[in-house]
């Protein structure tokens, strides 16, 4: 058959013209495809904060490696001595602080300095004191960091366990089964919830007249790291766009794919909007 094809192309003079036409058309198409490919990929990265988000999963969840004693004193506030006050229990503290109402900013008429107000500010002396106390606690108690690591590991293991059961039957055939679909669906919902919880925006800034809507595009890798985050639709309110972008960045890394999802990457598009104002 190939020979017939060759013969047809290289055949008699009457076919020359046709051959040339086919060649011309082919090169034209190739040019068009290559061009469009090059153009779309180069126009595909308008965001300015590229790969820095691909940090280790433990980074946001856990404090940095054990600092030396000197640095503990220098910035004792950073030291996670008790789980309730430190960064790792991020969600818990976030919830707490979100509910906190600004203390009544009552002023005394003697015109005292605003330091009188209730906002808690730590003085350097207190910092040193705190640090010393925390160090004392640490030496007496077990290292909470390893504790937490173990707990986290256990949590992850617990979470994965039930899903691996139903996951294998679909993965083998390569065709998504109903179980796989629901695993995906659940993973998407989880991502939605995480991002919403990390979204902070004062809704009173949105005037009731204008509808604010922004769209963020990003790609989630199997390990939960997030790539290529950018605003694909701006709201017209730069602060609103910033808050949505921060919500995605704050949520990274996302949980890794649960067993059963075999994709190499999952691209997302999220609409952020404010509704039912007033």
């Amino acid at each position: 058959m190939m020979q017939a094809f060759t013969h047809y192309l290289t055949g008699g003079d009457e076919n020359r013209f046709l051959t040339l036409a086919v060649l011309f058309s082919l090169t034209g198409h190739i040019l068009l495809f290559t061009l469009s490919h090059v153009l779309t990929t180069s126009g595909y990265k308008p965001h300015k904060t590229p790969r820095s988000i691909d940090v280790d999963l433990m980074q946001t969840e856990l404090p940095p490696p054990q600092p030396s004693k000197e640095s503990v004193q220098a910035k004792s506030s950073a030291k996670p001595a008790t789980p309730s006050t430190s960064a790792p229990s991020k969600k818990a503290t976030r919830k707490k602080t979100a509910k906190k109402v600004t203390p009544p900013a009552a002023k005394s008429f003697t015109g005292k300095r605003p330091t009188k107000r209730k906002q808690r500010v730590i003085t350097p002396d207190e910092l040193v004191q705190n640090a010393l106390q925390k160090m004392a606690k640490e030496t007496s108690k077990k290292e909470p960091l390893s504790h937490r690591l173990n707990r986290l590991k256990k949590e992850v293991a617990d979470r994965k366990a039930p899903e691996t059961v139903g996951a294998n039957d679909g993965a083998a055939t390569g065709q998504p089964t109903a179980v796989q679909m629901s695993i995906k669906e659940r993973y998407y919902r989880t991502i939605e919830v995480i991002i919403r919880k990390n979204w902070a925006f004062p809704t009173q800034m949105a005037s009731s007249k204008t509808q604010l809507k922004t769209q963020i595009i990003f790609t989630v890798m199997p390990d939960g790291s997030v790539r290529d985050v950018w605003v694909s639709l701006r709201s017209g309110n730069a602060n609103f766009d910033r808050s949505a972008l921060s919500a995605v960045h704050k949520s990274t890394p996302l949980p890794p794919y649960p067993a059963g999802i075999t994709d190499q990457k999952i691209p997302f598009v999220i609409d952020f909007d404010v509704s039912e104002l007033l």
Partner: protein
Amino acid sequence: MKKTYRIIVQTLLLMAFLLSGTPSQAEDRVQLRVTNPFENKTPVAVPAFHIAAASDHEKELATQAVTLLQETLAFTGYFRMVNPEAFLEAPSQTGITEQDIHFDRWRSSGAELLVTGSLTVSGQAIIGDFYLYDIFRQKSLFGVRLRGAGSPDENLRPLILKLADKIMVTYSGKHGFFGSRIAFVSKGSSTPKEIWTCDFDGYKPAQLTRNKAITLTPAWSPDGSKIAYTSYVNDKPDIFVQGAWPGARRDIVTAKGTTNITPAWLPDGQMMAASLTIEGDQAIYLLTQKGKIRKRLTRKWGKWGIDVSPVFSPSGDRMAFVSKRSGSPQIYIKNLNNGRIERLTFDGKYNTSPAWSPTGDQMAYAGFKDGHFDIHVMDVRGGRPMQLTLGTGDNETPSWSPDGSLIVFSSTRKGKSSIYVMNAYGTDQRQLVSLPGEQTAPVWSSNLNQ
């Protein structure tokens, strides 16, 4: 001819490769939707400022500066201060400029924005360098050097308020209200009601009038330089005006009628309106600042026609006022171009103290229902009012911040009346001043010196 064949095969292969290798945007993206943010404030980190020389005085100033900045930003209702215990880096030690900031360390603090600063006190001047960073976009939003000449203790507050305004402009695109003031009526235990003023956050309350007679209903001139009010200096209510600083001279505006009350300024700052009884009934008149009557603004409405409390829309084309023409006090709006008057409030039997929002589309007022006054807000085109206070004693005389984000009002929630502030949706209600005696009738000025 083999060559041609090979070329064609190659091109076909290339095409197949290109088609299969088109980038990911061709794939379907998973679509999610997130409606309404979980948190209603932007978390901000304000770590301690760097100080050049570590004198005790400088340390004290730097601490004050951080506290004041935190309080001022929190006061707007837009920001939440992140607990310093979550900070993994101390810019006061490691540096405040962009190359010194490790954004990845700040990510875990929960903050989205970071303010760093350094203060230098040299003799009679204070110099501050400040930066605002977007932690997640990992970039500086501004860097600014602010100077205050004169006593560092006195210049710290204006300097930090200037910084707060710079942050607000960067954050929201609009100026804050950190140059605004609030006037109110205060009655001591043995002294009559007089007018006082304080800063937007309740700072430095000071007595403005010393009339030794009942003085009521302060009204700021649009530029914030003067305050008009009603006072019984001459044993009957007359209207006066005086400069908005203690010890300023008092000038009479009008004493023409038997009662002259509730003055208001037109947005141009030239003309005023007030409720006078010069033709037998209490009606609203347009006046010059010298008290010359230009026009009667509300017509005679029988013996029930009491019209008081005029207030003008920001553009000056409409006037809201309280009238008893329908039997009970209600708020009406008069279109000054065509003279048409429409009733705004229908909910409840007693609605007073209208306050037009600076954005022009909302009206705040005090409405009496179930035995108490409460602050309400409604669209100036009508519709259903939104009640902002509930079950906290009497809440009266609302007034908007210059940017329309906050409302100041008086409340008897702790027994005696005092001044409170809340955001325009009724949340974050807190006491503004704590003075002996009773405070009522707060009014917010425009944003001055900006």
